[in-house]
């Protein structure tokens, strides 16, 4: 898929590879990732745990652990290569270009500081970056205003509390508000609703959708739940074992999944009536990325496995407006 003119593209990964150095050897986390996010669109990374979708998110903001390295390809955020950014560029990038929210509300906020203190930190940081003066009173008002924007009831009271006095849903709203305060072009949400009740989940998703339209903000939504992904994003990237196996418009991918893994994911969503029979599962287990199997990383669990799949790794091909990584749809060796 060719990248549209760079003014519009916020994030573009070109054949990106990321490795982890471990006690047991080098672990290949991401391999040959190609995707892009344009301004105002939302893309979701979908996959099971272990498929390294979080890694991709963390890589975008240079928050990978110390033993990680950008070992191949490029990751361009707003025109700059994340891997080669200087420390100063990284600091100014975080928040103003990209902002990330995390999964576990219990640990997301600093437990020893009040909510308003933490939100003011964000405003102060933004003021420094934009080289404008910082006024505490105005900042306080702005923080309360943002809490209203994220549909938080009674923001004046919330803002004086400590994180442990808030519920999970409230915390996520605070974090989203904090992100909005930074005015990022790209918001990365790493499973922000996985730890929440279903009803709260729905509220937060609705909120994100609305905010995306209001602010024309790009969103990357990382989730293991393909339902959620379908509901929130324009385009969907299905990941398996560190590779993007299918990438295309959300509706297309869900209605007409091309890659066997995507098909299996969609099939495994439980239906509403009990007459549908047994739940479908995918047999086998994710591969050990220290010693990845030869050939396609999914072949050990694939119902349509062919001989070539065991020997060679497929490259990405374009089909029906999507990118797929599977020999079933053509493609030469990677």
């Amino acid at each position, binding site marked *: 898929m060719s990248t549209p003119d760079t003014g519009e593209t916020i994030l573009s990964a070109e054949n990106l590879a990321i490795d982890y150095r471990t006690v047991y050897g080098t672990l290949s986390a991401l391999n040959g990732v190609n995707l892009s996010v344009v301004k105002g669109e939302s893309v979701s990374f979908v996959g099971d745990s272990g498929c390294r979708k979080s890694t991709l998110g963390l890589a975008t*903001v240079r*928050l990978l652990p*110390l033993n990680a390295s950008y070992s191949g390809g490029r990751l361009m955020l707003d025109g700059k290569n994340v891997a080669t950014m200087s*420390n100063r560029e990284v*600091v*100014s990038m*975080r*928040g*103003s270009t990209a*902002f*990330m*929210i*995390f*999964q*576990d509300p219990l*640990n*997301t*906020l*600093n*437990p*020893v500081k009040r909510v308003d203190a933490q939100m003011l*930190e*964000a405003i102060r*940081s*933004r003021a*420094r*970056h934009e080289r404008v003066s910082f006024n505490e009173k105005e900042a306080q008002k702005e923080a309360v205003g943002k809490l209203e924007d994220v549909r938080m009831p009674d923001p004046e009271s919330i803002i004086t509390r*400590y994180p*442990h*006095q808030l519920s999970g849903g409230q915390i996520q709203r605070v*974090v989203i508000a*904090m*992100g909005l305060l*930074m005015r990022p072009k790209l918001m990365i949400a790493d499973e922000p609703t996985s730890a929440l009740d279903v009803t709260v989940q729905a509220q937060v998703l609705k909120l994100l959708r609305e905010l995306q339209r209001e602010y024309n903000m790009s969103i990357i939504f990382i989730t293991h739940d393909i339902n959620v992904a379908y509901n929130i994003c324009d385009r969907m990237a299905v990941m398996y074992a560190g590779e993007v196996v299918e990438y295309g418009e959300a509706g297309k991918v869900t209605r007409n999944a091309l890659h066997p893994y995507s098909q299996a994911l969609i099939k495994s969503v439980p239906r509403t009536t009990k007459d549908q029979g047994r739940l479908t599962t995918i047999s086998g287990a994710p591969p050990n990325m220290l010693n990845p199997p030869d050939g396609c990383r999914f072949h050990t669990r694939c119902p349509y496995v062919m001989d070539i799949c065991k020997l060679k790794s497929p490259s990405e091909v374009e089909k029906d407006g999507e990118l797929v990584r599977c020999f079933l749809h053509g493609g030469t060796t990677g």
Partner: protein
Amino acid sequence: MVSNFGLFLTRRAINAVITIILLLALVFALLHILVPSPQAMARIITGNPRASPGALAAIIKANDLDAPVYVQFFRYVSQIFHGDLGTDTIYHVPEIQIMKEYLPITLELVVIGQIIGVLIGLYTGAIAAANRNRAPDYGMKALYLTTWSAPVFLVGFVMQLVVAYWLNLLPATGVVNPTLPPPAAVTGAPLSDALIAGNWVYFWSALQHLILPAFAIAVVGFGLVTRIGRASMIDALDRDYVKLAYMKGLSKGKVVWGTAFRNAMIPIITLVALLFAFSVGGAVIIEDVFAYHGMGYFTVQAIYNDDYPAILAFTVITGIAVILANFVADILYAMADPRVRLT
């Protein structure tokens, strides 16, 4: 919110008192298990292993040593709470008097030593954690490994040897230059009194004598603080709120010290209270090595002289001091961590 904290304080205070009583029970129990007969107990009290039966009988009567156990225990506890810790068998004065004289000196030494140790330990622990598995981390690890593994007297000896004897930088023994007239006794501790009185000559001399033993005490605990501090810091650095702080565009310094460290410090407070017990134990030996005339030094003399009341008094005082230190630590912990304070 204030009354919540007040409630917390009261609960903790009551807890401390109960623990003190239990401590006394423990000491009492050990005493009575290890010293089986009233006669043996009387012998301990007089400090004379060859006391006549008549003298022993008099002691037994005077101290109710043949009364039932619970009576004796009650007597014991009320004695302690009235400040009566027995009479010293060598100096023939009430133990409490001796304690009053020597305790401030040791407390000053231990507190200053611990402050130094904790500060250095926190700093090195944080550095080690932020530079995990790189050179500074390994350097710190080697440092705290050696200091923690060395016996207390070795630390003292090495310091004394190198700094006092070979380099001649500081005096090797003593609390202060004995020819100097002491300032008015307000706290009973040399540096503090000199500070309060503005007596700078005395202060300077006392300081010079304090530095080496204080650093020795610091070394006792420094290793543990670095270890736990490092672990606590690593734990804090892994948390999502640190990542969030980075996301807000805060610089590494602000995140490491302002956010992670602030959180990592909290369990250290409990550690410091634990360390206090350690340090007091170490003070006994350090005071011996440096001939620093505090409570520990006195206890060492008591050991040589079989002065049991002194040793027991020292044990009780130490225990109470540690429990009080823990109480203070509990309060500080509540002040630092809103989760404890506001639930």
